[in-house]
């Protein structure tokens, strides 16, 4: 968390205009600017305080957690110890389960969205446009309408079970989302055709052309798909809650849901779990910010 917090603090000092520059601005314009900056900085603080607060609280004792002090007194790792040792499933176990689910979902989305996206963008086959409309059609079918039948279908398939097969039940539902497929298709459509023509003249087949020429060019789109899929699956609550039967397979959000009623007053421990749930996504955001913003703006759908 500290690692994640520092870069943003750097950004703030690096990009905020020096006070002198603001003062040098002219009359009304400069007042307007100052007001705007004050509002922006105030709102940014409002955005960041809860996250800082949860980090601080995770290092406090239970009674201290209820006090409005910034520095934990005394500083303690009890909350984290509870999170790692007492909670069942423990933070490492939940973390591992989240990695498994989010990792699998990212892989399936990468493979299936890139191949199908390429086919819809470049290959000619019968009913292509109709099938693509069907892909988009999935976007208007709400989860709340399909969750009863999907649950029953998975039950009949034996995926609602206490064995690790249960993971597949979650992965299947979000294995390839229409927004990812759409994103890949749009990206392939934007690439020039010359390269494929050249490959064709060299006698390369479609699969070879896709793997050797087009896929290496699709880096930014693949990055966006990975981020959206990983974030969506990591943060996902609804489907895992419905599908995952054994607490041995719970992901972090499910752990949080359950602990929140069990450990109602142990806020430091609860906050340690929330920190564990947020940090990986935060790190991804710090390193891949460009792709985050692009992917959200281009698909218009948040994970």
């Amino acid at each position, binding site marked *: 968390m500290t690692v994640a917090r520092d870069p943003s603090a750097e950004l703030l000092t690096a990009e905020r205009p020096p006070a002198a520059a603001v003062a040098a601005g002219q009359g009304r314009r400069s007042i307007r600017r100052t007001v705007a900056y004050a509002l922006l900085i105030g709102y940014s603080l409002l955005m960041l305080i809860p996250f800082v607060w949860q980090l601080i609280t995770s290092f406090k004792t239970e009674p201290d957690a209820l006090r*409005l002090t910034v520095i934990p007194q005394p500083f303690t790792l009890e909350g984290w110890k509870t999170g790692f040792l007492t909670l069942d499933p423990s933070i490492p176990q939940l973390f591992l389960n989240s990695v498994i689910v989010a990792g699998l979902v990212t892989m399936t989305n990468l493979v299936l969205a890139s191949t199908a996206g390429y086919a819809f963008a470049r290959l000619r086959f019968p009913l292509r446009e109709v099938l693509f409309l069907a892909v988009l059609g999935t976007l208007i079918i709400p989860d709340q309408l399909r969750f009863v039948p999907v649950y029953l279908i998975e039950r009949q398939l034996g995926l609602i079970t206490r064995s690790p097969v249960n993971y597949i039940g979650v992965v299947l539902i979000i294995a390839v989302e229409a927004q990812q497929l759409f994103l890949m298709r749009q990206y392939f459509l934007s690439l020039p055709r010359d390269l494929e023509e050249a490959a064709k003249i060299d006698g390369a087949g479609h699969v070879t052309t896709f793997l050797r020429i087009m896929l290496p060019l699709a880096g930014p789109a693949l990055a966006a798909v990975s981020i959206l899929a990983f974030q969506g699956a990591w943060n996902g609550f609804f489907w895992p809650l419905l599908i995952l039967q054994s607490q041995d397979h719970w992901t972090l959000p499910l752990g949080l849901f359950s602990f929140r009623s069990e450990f109602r007053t142990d806020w430091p421990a609860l906050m340690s779990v929330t920190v564990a749930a947020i940090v990986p996504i935060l790190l991804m955001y710090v390193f891949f910010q460009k792709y985050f913003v692009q992917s959200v703006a281009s698909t218009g759908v948040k994970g």
Partner: protein
Amino acid sequence: MAIGVRARPSAGRGIRGERRAEMLTGLAFVFIPLFLYVFLYFGAMVYAGYISLWRWGLRGPRAFLGTQNFENVLSDPIFWKAVSNTAYYVAIWVPLTMALGLFLAVIVNQGIRGQTFFRAAFYFPTLASSAAITVVWIFLLQPEGLFNAARGVVGLNPIFQALGYTDNFNWLGSSRTAMNAIILLNAWTTSGTVMLFYLTFLQQIGRDIYEAASVDGAGNWQTFRHITFPLLRPAHFFVATLLVIGGFKLFDQAIIAGGKGGEPANSLTTIVLFIYRSAITDSEFGYAAAIGVVLFVIVFTLTLVQRRLFGEAPSW
């Protein structure tokens, strides 16, 4: 001549073979996604309609009920409670989030320095999982939490007392304020995404129209009111549609803050939470499916109404 005769059929076969290869590759590439969609979306939707006509538990005999489930749904007071809770949430949350997001976008778009930082900071709360952020929210809003402590320190308590809230008010524990607390939480976390959408649209508006306005002596508010706001019509439509659809799905925050019962006193029972309860807790899948169908009809109608109000969706 002889060469031409021999070459032509082989070339023809080559092209046909090439077409075939392309077709097969294409179909193979799209097969798995479409297979999954057929079962998990289109098939599921039809299946939901079918199930909704039956008494359908996990065990025991099933019975065909016809429209009985729908009649039961429509006469169930909890269903109407869930509908009114959800409608209230959508009615407040959507405009509030749009206003916040638009406000942030307009300010960030002022050619201000540090745009990247502010954009990142405002987008920040969107990153956290609904579960983590809701637990943090519960912590902040509990009677001894940061919110109640902070308003005491800042000296706002007299105002809150005048409005009838004690110094240690339990915001999520009172049926009067629980949903409002969830609305604030989600407006806070979603405003960043909405800002991003508005920014994309704002950056497409040409500079010259603003120059013309400033030559005509239009002030900030007038410019916003008469130029920016109307020009953002496609953005309003787009954002409103997304938020209304999203708002009717409210579930995570409600069940985490209020449990399966949507406590206190069903004030956090949303439509989706009610479906979940009917299916998973009560094992009444037919009934749950029927609520899903009703919800689908509601949202679909609303989207059509919205289209009427805001005009056609942008072509992309």
